[in-house]
């Protein structure tokens, strides 16, 4: 009997993304193995890497942006992303991956986005209202995704826009076209929608009596049945189409 690896529920991926995320994480661990082992052998822990990645943005990205050393800013931002990407492989190769590390990683990811958005607002690249709305809706969305993952009722798929926001800021700074503000507006609307759906589903799922356990299955049996029915119809349609293509033309 093969032993199943324990998986952390502390992540902000949807159900369909999770499998893909674990596959990518394993592949990334293999790919980054030589450099990750360099850190493992020097006792550089994943928490240290997360903390280093966390410190880069408030202490270097923000002031360098203020000093208008944009090239250095992007280098720092890329460094932040790379170091953040290394903490997982280092923890897995050092065999000390844990929920504590996962929590630090989530906080680092969110704070990174918040600092970049605040920097963009501070130096006039993002409107304060749109920037604030984007930050708030993003944080709410992440809270609901994590809460639903912990309660084992994950979203199917959620689009996370953090890196696209970084890219929009870069393009806005260098192309002198305001791409960032429309992006912030559209994504704020999307995030509001996800948050609302998350809230409604979570509220429906939670019991009405204080302290009572959640009894309803997620997703509900009716919904599972409907999904299966749709899937079977789609499959039948696909098979019909294949058979039609195989039939010889007269």
């Amino acid at each position: 009997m093969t032993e199943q690896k324990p998986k952390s529920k502390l992540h902000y991926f949807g159900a369909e993304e999770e499998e893909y995320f674990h596959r990518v994480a394993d592949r990334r661990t293999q790919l980054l193995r030589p450099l990750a082992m360099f850190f493992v052998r020097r006792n550089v822990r994943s928490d240290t890497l997360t903390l280093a990645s966390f410190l880069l943005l408030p202490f270097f990205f923000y002031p360098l942006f203020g000093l208008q050393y944009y090239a250095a800013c992007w280098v720092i931002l890329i460094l932040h992303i790379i170091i953040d990407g290394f903490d997982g492989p280092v923890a897995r190769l050092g065999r000390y991956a844990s929920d504590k590390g996962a929590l630090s990683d989530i906080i680092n990811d969110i704070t990174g986005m918040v600092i970049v958005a605040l920097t963009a607002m501070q130096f006039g690249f993002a409107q304060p209202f749109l920037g604030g709305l984007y930050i708030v809706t993003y944080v709410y969305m992440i809270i609901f995704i994590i809460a639903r993952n912990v309660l084992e009722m994950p979203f199917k798929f959620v689009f996370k826009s953090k890196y696209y926001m970084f890219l929009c800021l870069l393009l806005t700074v260098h192309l002198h076209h305001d791409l960032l503000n429309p992006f912030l507006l559209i994504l704020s609307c999307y995030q509001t929608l996800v948050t609302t759906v998350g809230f409604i589903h979570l509220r429906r799922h939670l019991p009405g009596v204080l302290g009572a356990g959640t009894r309803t299955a997620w997703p509900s049996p009716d919904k599972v049945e409907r999904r299966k029915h749709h899937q079977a119809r789609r499959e039948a349609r696909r098979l019909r189409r294949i058979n039609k293509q195989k039939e010889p033309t007269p």
Partner: protein
Amino acid sequence: MIWYWLIIAVGVLVLAALVRWHQSLLPLERGLIEVEWEETDELIPEGPDRVELAGEQVIVQCRDSSELNFSAVGTRVTPSALAFVTVHGRRLLVLLDRGKRKWTNLVDVKRAGEKGELVDGLVGWWRHGTGHLVASDGMRLVEVHRCFGRDRIYIIDPAKALQGHAFGVGLEVMMVAPCRQLGRVSLRENEIVVSAGRRAWKAKL
């Protein structure tokens, strides 16, 4: 403008401090167990083999009363940083170097004694970083690491640690020391005894 440079300067200082003390600030946490420390009058027993240090010369008096000695140039070793452990049927001397390299060396004493140098008998090593005490029950190894706040006690499978050249890989169980800084440590079958000054504690594993 000056504020931005000040923030950068603070950032450089914080990063430098993190690089210098990262292991003490963020000790490795894996297999953390909470044990009940009981104060005891027991003395930590001497091992069957005696290891003496004369400068950089390590003198090992084995159980069969034979004596081996070899030089460990460039290392800084204390008597409480030496232990014997059996790995894959071979009896090896664990030598926790607190010098510049901060490695835990596993040495085949016979080979080192024959050739006279530590490196000649070196079977494997891993980087301990902040370790300062070592003990063994023959199979498992205990490393005590100095951390901010309180020492950490790690029980390591040396065979696994050797494979990865990293003590984190072989780490099986860790616990928090009963006092800030430990002076000695001993491991028996399912009991660990630690001491600091005149006080000693023991705990069941």
